């Protein structure tokens, strides 16, 4: 068994009276692509935010490369240096141009010279299929698919060890979604990065996942490879991949 990159143990998080995560246990191995699936409101986003330290869990442990990140500001800073994140809405800074967005880390953290940073940004933009003349546009001038690409370029420019994808295909048409999936696979493979994705798009899961974990009611109810997912008799997984309203998963209205 490969080395464990991210290890999550007994993670609890609640907002007021609402228990969102109730004892998540999950391992992500080095170099693999793990996809967490689950319905809306099952705590996928909360899970990803806890791992990144954007939310502080109530209880439990998250170790990245064996280093505990819950409650430790220094290790959080440390891990932010080796990870990238593609946000659901892109989360591009609209006060900056496209290339300044992509090169943000190079400019602000590595103090790279602006010309050099711009060249680098254009190189990475090309990797995600964007022409160099996009570099000087403002993010608001781009379509949703292009914004996702820019977000991806920003996430990978520092060659991170771990990349997080928050619903990478939400809001895109099926073809653009497939293009983004390809780009995700390509860039992750190219960097040899460990990736952690949350999604409810099954096409995306089949394309990018090495392993799948299903989150339901704040717990991981099933995990396995994509092949195992297609064969499993697990009623939760079956219902989810078939997209049926009948089954053990009750939609809370």
């Amino acid at each position, binding site marked *: 068994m490969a080395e464990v990159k991210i290890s999550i143990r007994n993670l609890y998080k609640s907002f007021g009276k609402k228990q969102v995560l109730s004892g998540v246990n999950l391992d992500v191995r080095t170099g693999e692509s793990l996809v967490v699936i689950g319905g809306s409101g099952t705590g996928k986003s909360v899970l990803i935010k806890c791992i990144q330290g954007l939310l502080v869990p109530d209880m439990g442990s998250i170790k990245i490369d064996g280093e505990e990140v819950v409650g430790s500001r220094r290790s959080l800073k440390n891990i932010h240096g080796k990870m990238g*994140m593609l946000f659901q809405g892109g*989360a591009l800074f609209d006060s900056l141009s496209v290339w300044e967005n992509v090169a943000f880390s190079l400019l602000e953290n590595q103090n790279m010279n602006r010309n050099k940073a711009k060249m680098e940004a254009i190189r990475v933009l090309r990797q995600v299929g964007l022409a160099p003349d996009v570099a000087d546009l403002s993010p608001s001038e781009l379509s949703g698919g292009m914004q996702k690409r820019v977000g991806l370029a920003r996430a990978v420019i520092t060659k991170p060890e771990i990349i997080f994808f928050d619903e990478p295909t939400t809001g895109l048409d099926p073809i653009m979604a497939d293009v983004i999936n390809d780009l995700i696979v390509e860039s992750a493979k190219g960097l040899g990065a460990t990736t952690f994705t949350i999604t409810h798009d099954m096409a995306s899961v089949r394309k990018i996942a090495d392993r799948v974990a299903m989150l339901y009611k704040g717990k991981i109810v099933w995990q396995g490879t994509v092949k195992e997912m297609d064969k499993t008799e697990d009623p939760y997984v079956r219902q989810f991949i078939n997209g049926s309203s009948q089954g053990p998963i009750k939609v809370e209205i």
Partner: protein
Amino acid sequence: MQKKRVEHFLRTLGKPLVKFIIGLGELSSFVIKALYHCFTPPYYPKIFIRQLLDMGFYSLPVVGLTTIFAGMVIALQSYAGFARFGAESAIATVVLISVTRELAPVLSALMVAGRIGAAMAAEIGTMRVTEQIDALITLSTNPFKYLVAPRLWSGVIVLPLLVLIGDIIGIFGGYVVGVYKLGFNPANYINSTLQNMEPIDIISGLTKAAVFGFIIALMGCYNGYRSKGGAQGVGEATTNAVVSASILILIFNYVLTEVFFSK
């Protein structure tokens, strides 16, 4: 029945109080954090300069218009009043004191609060709800250093400069009304303004301005930073930023006047 009513009464009394105290605590911790990050590197001079321009340079027309009419109306009103005692000669001094001590700082600050405090809250609030602040954190950039500190610095530095210009324009407004409408001798008016000018008038006004600048930037950042729930949340944050800044400006105006001038 009686007990329930008492309970209900106490609850309606207690709930806002508890909320207020929690809010006060949140604000205090925000202020302490913000101040800490104001004085620790890295600094972001580019963002600071952009804020200086937005807050200072582009506010000049608004501040100019506000203070010139304030100076003019003071000259007119005090003439109407002082003519009753035959004390028209005091008008230049009245204009000087009221503009430098009160009108220029307070009115400029209120205008800037509406212009800039709202814009800050809207910008930071939008960044919050579109996850741009989360993105900053994952890019190893502290949002307090990147967003809050440059705005606080520019608020504290820019408002005194604006008020200094406002002082001059306001006094000029008084001069225009005094000379062209009320028929004062121009040389006499200027002389009496200069002779009666005391450093404390200007210094107190500029100190007030620095405090008001801090309040405006703080309320803009604070309300924007904690806004949630999409467009509506940002709208609320914007309103709160302007309203709370305006009220705090008026309260601190009194407090500072008390500090400077009460004997």
